[in-house]
């Protein structure tokens, strides 16, 4: 392979012969050769293009930049042997670059840990204020709705009830059924060692009704609908649709956020009831097949094990979880700005955070119910 350039002394100065492939494709070799030129050059320089094949813009630019870095003024550089047609343009642009333009940006200073802490606190404070403001706006819209029912956007609400609720029934049912079969199976294995098979019914009933039914449903809905809320509203933000709504005198919180929050608050308890039923069905089926407990005996035992609050202590959590999921999803969606990457990041944040909040709330409920013997 031919070396792309050769530097030879000629008279007072230098002659630089350019050889072989000088297209963009040969850029790596050319780059390496340019690097090997002396760091400073003096005297007139003549570039001979007659042996350069298919000279490209980028290599020519790299050559000009390299010569200028070596301290050669443009007036001392000559070109011969049919230089490429765009060379003149490049020389002109090169000259423009040399004239300094505006102050250079100061390099970032290393921050002390205290400055970092301060910045973090300010950010968190701003964040908390944002959340509070968001909650306030939602409350304001719901408050208005008492005097102006139109603010509730019934058609939009219906759509979200269908999308977050009705279409979620199959997956919620299936997962509740399977998980309770698994719980019953593992419980049966342990309890049958003590001959306490019948307590599998108690185990399934209490676990499903108090905790698992609502928690599983909330987590599925957070994955399905929390992410959808964040992504839908996020894309509308990127398309400036929310700005358009504001400009037309409409309130995006009222149009986009409140219908989703209300829909989920309505839907999640209903889904929880379905999940409870499917969970009990799963437990009953496993008891019948694995433990030979006939259905009448299962239902009798089920009624025995229930306290009046068992079912309600699960269901009462559903609207709270729903509000958390919907508000985290829509809030993160409203935060999307500027780029597709933000959209992806905030959708992820929405799901992770809403699941975290649901579990945190569930733990708080557990402590609360224990304290008040609910």
């Amino acid at each position, binding site marked *: 392979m031919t070396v792309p350039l050769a530097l030879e002394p000629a008279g007072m100065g230098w002659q630089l012969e350019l050889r072989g492939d000088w297209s963009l494709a040969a*850029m*790596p070799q050319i*780059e390496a050769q340019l690097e090997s030129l002396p760091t400073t050059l003096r005297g007139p320089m003549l570039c001979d293009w007659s042996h350069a094949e298919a000279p490209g*813009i*980028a290599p020519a630019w*790299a050559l000009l930049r390299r010569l200028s870095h070596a301290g050669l003024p443009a007036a001392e550089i000559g070109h011969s042997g049919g230089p490429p047609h765009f060379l003149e*343009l490049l020389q002109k642009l090169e000259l423009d670059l040399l004239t300094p*333009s505006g102050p250079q940006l100061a390099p970032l200073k290393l921050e002390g840990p205290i400055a970092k802490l301060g910045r973090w606190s300010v950010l968190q404070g701003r964040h908390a204020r944002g959340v509070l403001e968001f909650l306030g706006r939602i409350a304001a819209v719901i408050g208005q709705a008492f005097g102006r029912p139109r603010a509730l956007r019934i058609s939009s609400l219906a759509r979200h009830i269908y999308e977050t609720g009705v279409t979620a029934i199959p997956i919620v049912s299936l997962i509740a059924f399977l998980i309770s079969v698994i719980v019953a199976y593992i419980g049966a294995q342990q309890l049958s060692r003590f001959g306490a098979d019948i307590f599998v019914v108690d185990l399934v009933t209490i676990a499903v009704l108090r905790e698992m039914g609502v928690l599983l449903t909330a987590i599925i809905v957070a994955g399905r609908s929390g992410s959808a809320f964040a992504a839908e509203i996020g894309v509308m933000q990127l398309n400036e649709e929310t700005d358009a709504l504001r400009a037309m005198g409409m309130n995006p919180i009222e149009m986009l956020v409140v219908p989703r929050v209300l829909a989920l608050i309505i839907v999640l308890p209903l889904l929880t009831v379905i999940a409870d039923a499917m969970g009990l069905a799963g437990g009953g089926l496993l008891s019948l097949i694995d433990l030979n407990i006939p259905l009448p005996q299962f239902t009798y035992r089920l009624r025995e094990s229930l306290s009046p609050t068992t079912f309600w202590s699960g269901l009462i959590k559903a609207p709270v979880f729903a509000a958390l999921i919907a508000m985290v999803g829509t809030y993160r969606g409203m935060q999307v700005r500027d780029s*597709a990457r933000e959209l992806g990041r905030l959708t992820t944040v929405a799901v992770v955070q809403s699941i975290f909040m649901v579990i945190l709330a569930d733990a708080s409920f557990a402590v609360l119910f224990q304290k008040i013997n609910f």
Partner: protein
Amino acid sequence: MLDRSVDPVIRVRSLGNRFGSQVVHDGLDMEVRQNEIFGVVGGSGTGKSVLLRSILGLRHPDAGTVELYGRDVETLAAADRSSLVQSYGVTFQNGALISSLTVAQNVQLPLREHYSLSENTLDELAQLNLALVGLEPEAGAKFPSQLSGGMIKRAALARALALEPKLLFLDEPTSGLDPISAAAFDELLLYLHAQLRLTVVMITHDLDTLFATCTRVGVIVDKHMISDTLDGMLENPHPWIHSYFHGARARAAEKENHG
């Protein structure tokens, strides 16, 4: 009338495109020769963008062939296709800059993908391409969302020029620009066309741009394309073409460029 000694850069033959029962193109022919600035014009919904997508090989046409530099876009093998992609540059209507990268990184993106260059060289080349389209070096560090409409168009052009194509496709390069920015863009295009010896295919609604830059124009009417010089178009009796080139806006644009 056509000069047969020079092979056309783009040759589209009896192209057909339909969406369901809606026929967009039916037997559309188009030729673009070296060093032309070819304007594509047509009413809304006549399939200008569909034509562009067919030429770029982004859409499989329902009938007909598309040749770039004498090679069929459809039958090109994957390996060959990447070399073809490197021979043209495209700007999309809204810029289509990658929103999570800075302008300089956007310009470097195709260079990074196709060549292994040092960071230093990549910076130099980003600087070159920004300078070529008349953007300040400081614009390189900005994100697309921080740019004005005119700067986005220029940045998109810089990215399209990064691989040193001989052929440039521009989709509505001046739409959404104020007349002064649009005129500056026309000037830039003419300058680059002359200096870099580019062949340009431009979809545009902007009559000023059309009169200021284009050497030939192709009008999509009745699912076909009628190509002619601007002077030829002014004489064309077809009712749509007549009203397009003789409307009030057209007369103003013509006056400005000929008078």
